[in-house]
């Protein structure tokens, strides 16, 4: 698995983690200040095409960070799955954005820049921050009346690659070219509206633009790692764990995890819909191998740190293949039900005696039992009494990984 982002809380504790965030914030504020973001007339001037300084800083930053993020992901250094990608709430985002636009042109700041203006004792910045306190207060007091709008039009961890259906590398190149085009056009506008002279030293600019394009081409050329690539990087370690049977949990351990209030279990049943309808363990979700990539995004966004994911088939082998995909895509705490649903029924057989063993044990990955009716999870054996089976012994294998990855998004 790529080494970054680091599991900082596990490495240096919460205080250490907070100090890292304080340092990041320090550099953030420092750079905003040296770039002139505490000077409101400059911030406002971009909207009259007179001085596009803020625009230039902003899109240069996006292009630089983007190229570095996807470049390090391409090289296997950074796990894109583990970094915070803002979830899409389309309409509340757009309406919120328009309201922010109003605030921008009236107030001459945005929250980050107003903090830096406050820090450098700009009185207009201080008033903006005070207004910001009022705005945040009003929002918390009023959001209850339009909660459906606030939480609606939700698309999860949606990227531009998903929207346009083009590979990451091309999109990175496109954004870089778009930014450079905007800089070029922006300077023409500045000369027209702001009577600014075109700065000297064109050589340095060409080097900068050239290296951005070069880096983007490199990202495109190397490409983002596929699930198979990611599995390849971790296969030695994980195949060993499989061979040592560290991730195949006994049905009794699954039952005790399901009964444990401190854990949340996500049961992924990869069998056919027919098998699933005949019988499945309570709460299981029927999935197909094709839908696993979508599931990965969904799991990573919605998973609480105390979630355990258990994959199951009729037997074990097919579930292990899905387990490999989930592990390669950095879903934490994934396990396989040992022996699959067949083993589950064998262990808890006395709960539902009406389920009889099939006379001929045919192929692998088929049910070993005959079900009198398609009762799904309404058989008693779908959730045997944890109290009754509490004495059943098993080797405990579930251990929760400490959460690695983002602490949350920009809205905190």
């Amino acid at each position: 698995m790529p080494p970054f982002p680091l599991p900082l809380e596990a490495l240096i504790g919460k205080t250490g983690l907070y100090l890292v965030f304080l340092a990041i914030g320090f550099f953030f504020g420092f750079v905003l200040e040296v770039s002139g973001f505490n000077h409101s007339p400059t911030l406002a001037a971009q909207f009259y095409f007179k001085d596009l300084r803020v625009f230039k800083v902003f899109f240069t930053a996006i292009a630089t960070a983007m190229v570095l993020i996807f470049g390090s992901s391409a090289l296997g250094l950074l796990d894109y799955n583990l970094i915070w990608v803002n979830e899409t709430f389309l309409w509340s985002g757009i309406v919120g954005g328009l309201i922010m636009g109003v605030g921008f042109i009236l107030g001459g700041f945005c929250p980050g820049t107003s903090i830096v203006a406050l820090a450098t004792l700009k009185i207009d910045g201080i008033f903006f921050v005070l207004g910001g306190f009022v705005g945040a207060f009003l929002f918390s007091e009023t959001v209850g009346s339009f909660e459906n709008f606030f939480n609606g039009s939700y698309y999860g961890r949606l990227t531009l690659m998903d929207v346009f259906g083009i590979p990451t590398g091309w999109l990175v190149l496109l954004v870089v070219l778009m930014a450079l085009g905007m800089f070029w056009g922006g300077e023409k506008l500045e000369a027209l509206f702001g009577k600014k002279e075109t700065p000297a030293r064109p050589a340095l600019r060409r080097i900068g633009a050239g290296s951005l394009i070069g880096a983007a081409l490199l990202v495109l050329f190397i490409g983002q790692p596929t699930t198979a690539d990611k599995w390849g990087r971790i296969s030695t370690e994980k195949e060993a764990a499989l061979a040592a049977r560290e991730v195949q949990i006994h049905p009794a351990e699954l039952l005790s995890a399901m009964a444990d209030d401190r854990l949340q279990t996500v049961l992924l049943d990869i069998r056919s819909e027919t098998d699933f309808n005949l019988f499945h363990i309570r709460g299981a979700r029927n999935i197909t191998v094709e839908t696993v990539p979508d599931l990965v995004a969904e799991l990573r966004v919605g998973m609480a740190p105390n979630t355990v994911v258990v994959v199951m088939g009729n037997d074990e082998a097919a579930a292990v293949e899905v387990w490999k995909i989930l592990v390669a895509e950095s879903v934490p705490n994934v396990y396989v039900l040992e022996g699959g649903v067949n083993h589950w029924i064998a262990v808890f057989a006395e709960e539902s005696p009406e389920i009889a063993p099939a006379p001929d044990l045919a192929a692998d990955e088929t049910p070993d039992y005959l079900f009198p009716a398609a009762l799904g999870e309404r058989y008693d054996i779908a959730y045997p009494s944890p109290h009754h089976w509490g004495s059943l012994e098993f080797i405990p294998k579930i251990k929760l990984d400490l959460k690695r990855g983002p602490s949350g998004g920009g809205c905190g």
Partner: protein
Amino acid sequence: MTAATEFHPQIRAGGRLKALTGIFRRQRKSYINPYIGGVLLGLVLFGSFFLTGSGLGASGGIARYVSFLVDLVAPEHVDRVPAWISFSGGDRNALDNWIVLVTTGALLGGFVSGVINGRTRFETHKGPNISNRTRWVFAFLGGIFFTYGARLARGCTSGQALSGGATLAAGSWAVMLAIFGGAYALAYFARRLWN
């Protein structure tokens, strides 16, 4: 003679207070080249993602400071309104969150840079045709709108447009277009403020 060299004789004269306030009277330096500033900001943003997995943000920190204050004044009220509960309900401390550290760090970093570059001083920046008081009123109003919108959009220019822009989050690009679109659309009507 620059302001920086001016105050040295005062230190020798033993004007300790003047020496202390003197650091705020350093010669004002001009801002750096915007493209270089952009690369530096990009490096900070990337560094944040690379090390921690999180991007940058500002409005979340402001909202949490507000929640902390409201919890001091009216803890019962906080425990009844869902939007406050998520920040400081029960014995939850609204300030115990990464974004608060980033925001506080930005305050420190901005201050230090302002002092080094002679730009930390009480002053009001405004357009040439309005009074200070008008500027303050509109800055206050702008702050209300901006942070309200930022809460609604789940992030501001930093948390959505910048951080989500660099990770190619679809919703963040929509927010970014809306912010700039809104401001450009309204710029004509607000031209008195800035021109």
